[in-house]
């Protein structure tokens, strides 16, 4: 019984901390009868909150990397992100080209430094 609980614990966490807090917004959308204007102030504000939060997660992953990525110097990680950003705009806003450029810069940087 105890062993089963230990095995199932990660899935319980997944449902309570991942699935439900995420799914609730889809469900509210389903039961909301009236339409919501894309430009309504509430929608704009919730989008800015979500954008800032996600940007925060991204910056933390680059600056305070764990595991094997943490073994690559901080300056190389930040430099590679900047390269990706520049390549993205230089190559007609292509996410794919930006990712390839950033990864190439990270690999080159970590081999050089």
């Amino acid at each position, binding site marked *: 019984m105890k062993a089963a609980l230990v095995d199932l614990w990660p899935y319980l966490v997944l449902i309570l901390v991942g699935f439900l807090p995420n799914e609730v917004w889809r469900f509210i959308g389903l039961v909301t009868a009236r339409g919501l204007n894309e430009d309504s102030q509430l929608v704009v504000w919730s989008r800015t909150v979500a954008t800032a939060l996600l*940007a925060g*997660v991204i*910056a933390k992953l680059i600056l305070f990397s764990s595991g094997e990525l943490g073994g690559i110097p901080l300056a190389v990680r930040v430099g590679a992100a900047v390269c990706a950003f520049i390549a993205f705009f230089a190559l007609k806003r292509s996410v794919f080209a930006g990712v390839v450029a950033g990864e190439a810069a990270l690999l080159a940087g970590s081999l050089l430094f």
Partner: protein
Amino acid sequence: MVPPTTFPSTAAAYLGGVKSALGSVYVIVLMGTYVGLGALAHDVGVSALWLAVSTALVWAAPAQLILISGLASSSTLVEVAIAVTLSATRLFPMVVALLPVLRGPGTRLRDMLLPTHFTSISMWVESLRLLPHVAREHRIAFCNGLSTGYMGTAVVSGAIGYYLAAGLPPLLAGVLLFLTPLSFFLSTVNNARLAVDKMALVFGLLLGPLLAYWQVQLDLMWTGVIGGTLAYGIHRVRELRQ
């Protein structure tokens, strides 16, 4: 590519959706994102099965990123849940906008459950683009097929990233782990077309590490609320002045 207006059967409409998904550019974006998430999941120490189940149940890459990286950090589960829910508010207006396109005269609420769960950015953009060309009685089946194609791609890519990270030498594993912040960074930059979204992005990039460095409780929640509200406030003041 515009799919045919009518399908001979519901099954054909579903398969048409799967085909549309596998042929779209979003498949490449999803592959990159989920290979990266797979590598991160391996790094964090959750199982490959757990990752696959999370992709099927959560089906939102930002929420999964916050969940997986949050479980590895010193954050409490409540903090992670708050961050996940704040990242997911966008799903609400997306579902509201999508349902009228899917709904037909005889549609029951339970027919809408699956498309509601499947709602995510890639599926949403493609559904709004393609569904108007699909006969109304086949739209739900087509949309479910489209979503299955995307979700299947994500599950397979996640597993590939997970096992790649397990077998690669440290340097290449580091390069693979960099895929997650990089692809999320660029797609967020790409999505931030309006000045208000650009400001929110910049504030988040600055506040996130700063609040974490100062060891502020609920740092991600405050990054979102303070950064987002600041951007929104500046946008409103500018708007009212005009």
